Structures are given as structure tokens and as C-alpha cells.
């Protein structure tokens, strides 16, 4: 199963629920790949934030936190940074990959210790 953590965050926010609660009951043993990506923020009909899963920006801090939480529980998993439009320069994209790698490495060290 593929777990898109940015999508979980966006959907939870838009529906007024908690992403962490959703993830805590997720069957991580079935997950073989993780997707991360950036989202845009607009406002809905009552002026509340409405997140759009655009893949046009860096991964949000809150999504990195969720990712670290998932990796700590599930162990290291293949991870893809989705950035489909307004593709940035290489250093920016690489920085995203390095952040993901750091979190994966931390999880590997923790499980080896």
C-alpha cells in the first residue's frame, strides 16, 4: 500500500479531523511506499483554511513532523517527494530529499541501537 502523508494532512485539515489520529490507526505493516509533497493554502466558504494538494511547493513542516512520526513507528520506507508543477532548481529539490534521508537515517539508527 502507498501512503501519501501530505494527502492525509490536507484531507484531515479540510475535513476538520486530526491527521495524527488517522495515522495512529493505520496498518503500517502493509505500507511499502510513502509520498510527500507540498500543498497550497486557500480559504473556503467560511474563510477557514482550505488546503489544495498541488505538489508545487516544499513539504510543509507539519507534514515532515507526521512523516517522522510514521517512520519512527513503521521503520524506513521508500519515500518519494512529489513536485509536479513549478518545479524548483536542483538544490531546492535536493534539500527536500536530504531532509527525508535524515529522518530515514535517524529511524535506522534507532532501530539498530
Amino acid at each position, binding site marked *: 500500500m502507498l501512503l501519501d502523508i501530505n494527502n492525509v494532512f490536507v484531507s484531515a485539515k*479540510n*475535513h*476538520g479531523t486530526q491527521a495524527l489520529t488517522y495515522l495512529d490507526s493505520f496498518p503500517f505493516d502493509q505500507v511499502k511506499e510513502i509520498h510527500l509533497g507540498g500543498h*497550497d493554502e*486557500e*480559504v*473556503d*466558504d*467560511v474563510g*477557514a483554511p*482550505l488546503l*489544495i*494538494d*498541488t*505538489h508545487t511547493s516544499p513539504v510543509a513542516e507539519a507534514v515532515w513532523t507526521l512523516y517522522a512520526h510514521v517512520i519512527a513507528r513503521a521503520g524506513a520506507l521508500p519515500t518519494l517527494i512529489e513536485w509536479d*508543477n513549478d518545479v524548483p532548481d536542483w538544490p531546492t529539490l535536493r534539500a527536500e530529499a536530504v531532509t527525508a534521508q535524515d529522518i530515514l537515517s535517524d529511524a535506522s539508527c534507532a532501530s539498530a541501537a
Partner: protein
Amino acid sequence: MLAPFETSFADALLNADRPVPYGITAHNAAVPTRRFAVYRNNVVVGLGKALKSRFPVVEKIVGEEFFAAMALVFVKEQPPRSPQLALMATYFPLSSPRSNRRVNYPILQTWRGSRPRAHAPIMRPTPRPSARATLRRSIPMLSGVSASVFTPRPKSFARHIRSSRSGR
């Protein structure tokens, strides 16, 4: 046969002037107009991208901006009838009467290829350098066509495209 709800939902998806279908609500709004607009945008932009991947040469010829505007009109007038988007738009480009009224661009009808035309091909073989330059030489009307045929609509279309790009 689709139930009334499905029919009104499908209709509202492709027509921004239709109200949000009865029964669609959000946790914080009884009539979530802006949220439904995101959904609408996903559908239309996604279909436009499918069209773009099917007709890359047409896009090169008319340009990205015009193609996007044309696709926006087309997908609303002739939404896909099969779940296989690879089969979408057999009669694209510009085969529908409404589109033809809007954009009289006979070269595209010639290139459509799926149905033989009674008239002779407008294009005739000429050496490269580029497809666009070649066309300008062989079809004088094309060099001025973007100014004479498409204005003023493309600018308003372009604004619409830009403002509706965000969602997916």
C-alpha cells in the same frame, strides 16, 4: 440511466454557472461553493492535461496558452464518454459546431486525421527548419491568425486558466 443526483452532479461539475448540487455539504458549510469549485477545477484541468498528452503536435502549433484555452472549452462541451482517457476526444480538435463557431481554424480540421475531408490538404510538404516556421511559409494566413482569429477571447481564457490552475 443515471439517478437525478448523479446527473445534476455531473452537470454541475462541467458548468460553473450551475449551483452546487443539492446534498453536497461540508462540515462547516451547508453549501460549500468554494470547495466544490476546487473539485470542478480538478476535473477540468485533469481532462485538459489528458487532452494535451493526446495532441502534443497540435499544442506545439497553436501554442500552450491557446491550447489550454481550447481544451477548457472542449472538455466542457464533449466530456469523455469512456473511462479510458486514451480514447478521449476522438473528434478533437474543433470538430464540434460550437467550437467551430468560436474558432475558425481549418488547418486543425485537416490534421484531425480521424475522418477524411472532402477538400485537399492545406498543408504541403516543405523543408524544415521548424514546424511553425514551415507552416508560416506554406500557409500565410497562419502567421497572423493568432491576432486576427483568437482575440479577444484568448486573454480572458488565459486569465481563467491561470486563476483555475491551483487545484488537483
